[in-house]
């Protein structure tokens, strides 16, 4: 230790060293901030681009037309056989004061502006009440996908007429329909209340959402009890020898196996050997349960390990058996960690696509799945299907579906955090 | 050989206490020797010195007591250390009493020196005095060297001093009865002899205390005591 009275040199050297240390600390902090900024920037870019693309899909346009059920075109004994779409198109043309040509091309062009749903609704009305033939009914249905895009300004005259599906004349008709007050813009509830369809304006996520929910239910019911029980046994009761060591290593490895391998496993075992139905929530659920199982086991084991041994000793010392000590004391304390781990692994399962493609969930499934064994699709696969669809209107709907999926993820993760905060106990 | 204390300052404090007891013992011994010499040689100046020096013994004993209390409160001594501290306390009290006895002898020797000498009696007194002195030295040496045999020896020969006292007592009585003018001096000598006997008792006391300190056991049996003389 040099004292201040001696030559100030050592003091200077010490101060220089100190400055160097501070500089290094500042640099490190800067690197950290830079890294975070990078990550946040990427995240920001990703989210904004998706939201920008998908937001328009939440808004759509519907047209309300009075439809005269022409008794000459509709036969009460054969309601199914009438061509409602053409009937409505012709009436629209008349409304627009446009003459139809001999080939009926104008009618076709008018039909292109409307959704087949309109004709379908008329059919349903007539089925319920055939006396409507000869009367005029008011029908509201979404406009065709491309018409909707025109109204939202994404399909316009700036594109060369040969490169687009609707020509200028159709645009004029659309403008006039809007001017006449027949068309109304509103929130696209159909996205959540309709199931998949080849027509983009009629395509919704309901089927996928229900399919996802059913499948997640199967996954949870299989993976969670089995996983937690296995982890409790391995951690608390199993003897610590070479075999249990090997099992632990294998479980950790299984968690890293690519998910598509599980799809192959599902295909070979569940579908080909055991005869489970293809593309059903039960099959998908089982495959994903196998995939989620290692994660659940690992999360449960670390939650159990985190319980201090003094709790176990205290319980044993009072005369509790091993099982009582585990179930009365250790497990309740590990519950928050277990719940967090399971919810997060369920959130991962929700977003899995590859294994489900292997077991056939890639097919087009109209309608809502009725049960666990009926054909279904799930949100991520729906996104995949829509991405591959030809219609341009599906583009924005894919992005919207991604937003919905991300929304689910955020909700599930938030639930996990909330539950953990609520049940966290201090020992 | 016993190990040192892990906390060396504890060991040092114990050693210091023991050293002070030894110092007190030395002082007491020299007081006794000087008192006897002053009485026999009729040295009035020496008598005064002995009387004045007694204050030093009192101070030393007070200091030992303070140190012992401090050790007990602050160090919580156990087993042999505890016995040592308590023994130091008790022995210092005995030694302080020995000093008082020596002072008493010197005080009486002063006036005696002004009176007629009583040579035969003085010689008997001297013999008893030197015996007591020897016993005191023996017990203190045995204590400082942790020798149990020396202690036991002193303890067993307590009656020798008593016998000396009894014979001196009888001698004095005879002397005084023979010549009433000597009663004054004789009475002084009687008290001085009694003081010597008390010093001898203290030596035996110290032997008992030291025995418990070193072995942890009390000496078995009754202290051998001469019968008190009658008439």
């Amino acid at each position, binding site marked *: 230790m040099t004292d201040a009275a001696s030559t100030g040199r050592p003091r200077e050297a010490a101060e220089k060293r100190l400055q160097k240390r501070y500089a290094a600390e500042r640099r490190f902090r800067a690197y950290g901030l830079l890294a975070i900024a990078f990550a946040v920037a990427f995240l920001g870019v990703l989210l904004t681009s998706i939201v920008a693309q998908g937001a328009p899909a939440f808004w759509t346009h519907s047209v309300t037309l009075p439809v005269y059920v022409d008794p000459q075109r509709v036969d009460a004994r054969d309601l199914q056989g009438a061509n409602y779409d053409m009937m409505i198109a012709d009436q629209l043309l008349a409304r627009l004061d446009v003459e139809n040509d001999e080939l009926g091309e104008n009618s076709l062009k008018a039909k292109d502006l409307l959704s087949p749903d309109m004709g379908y609704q008329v059919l349903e009305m007539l089925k319920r009440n055939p006396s409507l033939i000869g009367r005029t009914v008011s029908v509201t249905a979404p406009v065709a996908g491309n018409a909707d895009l025109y109204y939202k300004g994404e399909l316009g005259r700036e594109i060369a007429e040969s490169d687009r599906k609707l020509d200028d004349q159709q645009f004029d008709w659309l403008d006039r329909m809007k001017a006449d007050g027949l068309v109304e813009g509103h929130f696209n509830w159909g996205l959540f209340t309709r199931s998949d369809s080849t027509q983009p304006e009629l395509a919704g996520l309901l089927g996928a959402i229900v399919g996802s929910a059913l499948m997640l239910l199967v996954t949870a019911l299989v993976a969670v009890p089995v996983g937690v029980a296995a982890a409790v046994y391995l951690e608390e009761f199993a003897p610590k020898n070479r075999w249990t060591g090997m099992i632990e290593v294998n479980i950790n490895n299984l968690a890293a196996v690519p998910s598509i391998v599980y799809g192959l496993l599902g295909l070979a075992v569940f579908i080909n050997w055991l005869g489970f139905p293809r593309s059903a929530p039960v099959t998908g659920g089982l495959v994903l349960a196998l995939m989620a199982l290692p994660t659940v086991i690992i999360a449960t084991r670390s939650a159990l390990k985190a319980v201090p041994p003094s709790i176990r000793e*205290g319980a044993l*010392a*009072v*005369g509790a058996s091993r099982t009582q000590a585990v179930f009365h004391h250790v497990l309740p304390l590990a519950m928050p960690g277990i719940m967090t781990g399971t919810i997060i692994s369920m959130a991962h399962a929700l977003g899995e696509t590859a294994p489900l493609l292997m077991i056939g969930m890639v097919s087009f499934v109209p309608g809502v799945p009725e049960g666990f064994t009926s054909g279904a699709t799930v949100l991520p696969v729906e996104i995949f299907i829509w991405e591959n669809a030809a219609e341009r209107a599906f583009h924005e709907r894919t992005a919207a579906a991604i937003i919905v999926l991300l929304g689910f993820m955020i909700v599930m993760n938030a639930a996990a955090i909330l539950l953990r905060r609520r049940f966290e*106990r201090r020992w | 050989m*016993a190990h040192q*204390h892990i906390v060396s300052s504890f060991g040092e404090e114990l050693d210091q206490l023991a050293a002070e007891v030894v110092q007190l013992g030395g002082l007491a011994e020299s007081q006794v020797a000087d008192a006897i010499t002053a009485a026999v040689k009729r040295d009035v100046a020496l008598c005064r010195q002995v009387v004045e020096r007694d204050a030093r013994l009192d101070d030393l004993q007070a200091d030992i007591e303070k140190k012992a209390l401090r050790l007990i409160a602050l160090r919580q001594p*156990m*087993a042999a250390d505890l016995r040592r501290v308590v023994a130091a306390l008790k022995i210092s009290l005995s030694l302080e009493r020995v000093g008082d006895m020596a002072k008493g002898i010197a005080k009486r020797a002063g006036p005696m020196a002004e009176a007629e000498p009583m040579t035969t009696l003085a010689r008997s007194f001297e013999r008893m005095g030197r015996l007591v002195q020897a016993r005191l030295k023996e017990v203190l040496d045995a204590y400082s060297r942790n020798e149990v045999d020396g202690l036991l020896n002193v303890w067993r020969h307590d009656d020798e001093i008593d016998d000396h006292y009894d014979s001196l007592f009888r001698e004095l009585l005879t002397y005084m009865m023979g010549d009433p003018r000597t009663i004054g001096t004789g009475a002084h000598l009687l008290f001085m002899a009694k003081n010597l006997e008390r010093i001898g008792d203290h030596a035996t006391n110290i032997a008992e205390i030291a025995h418990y300190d070193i072995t942890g056991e009390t000496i078995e049996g009754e202290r051998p005591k001469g019968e008190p003389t009658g008439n």
Partner: protein
Amino acid sequence: MFGKIFRQGPDMESTTIPDQSPNTVEAPRPTLGDDTGGSVGTTKISARDVNVFYGDKQALFGVNLEMADRAVTALIGPSGCGKSTFLRCMNRMNDTIPGARVEGTILMDGENINDRRIDPVLLRANVGMVFQKPNPFPKSIFENVAYGPRIHGLASSKSEMEGVVENALKRAGLWAEVADRLHHPGTSLSGGQQQRLVIARAIAVEPEVILMDEPCSALDPIATAKIEDLMDELRQQFCIVIVTHSMAQAARVSQRTAFFHLGRLVEDGPTEQIFTNPRDTRTHDYITGRFG
């Protein structure tokens, strides 16, 4: 013995452990409330030739020790001497350590508890344990005390259970402080209170023996004093064995002391004798702080 563990204590024999201290009054049959300083009850636990191995490493070498009923026996010794290991043999807690092997005979009321046929779960209801760091369950104070009686079926109704809990808390000297907040978590108490809660938890299952592994080492002096006072009361009913690092504490609370060193029992005897005139040099060196 185990047929009647929960309802009554064992019969007291008339043989007493010879008390070498010269100042003790030899009472013929010690009774509750009898506080004659050094007098102890009959032998409750008798350990004979106990050897403990952790894998290949031997931790205890041929320990022979008798522990008396209605008394506190203190186990002292430097770190790693095996006293905690020995304590844990009394309630077979060493069974929970993989690789631990306990050999020898440990007789409790004449029955060898080290026998494989004895169920450790039942044994631990009869032999309670208090640990170094207070470890109340993260449940309410009431639940902490009620857990033991509940799993052993000691109370058949809610009111009976409340009575059991109140009784245990009173005997542990904690009732007055917690009576108005029985449903607060056990972890909300101070360190000393937590330790008394743990003691109440142990008492609630009506044990005959209470083991304490350095119970006061995590507590402040006042909490420590309260627990030592509690030990004085408890020892009139139970056989208490305490492991402690503090010799002063061993001297204060115990009637008999045993000194362990490097896995061997060096010396044991009445506390007074051990601390004024121990027979073995090693004991003496340890007690006077001379270990070298």
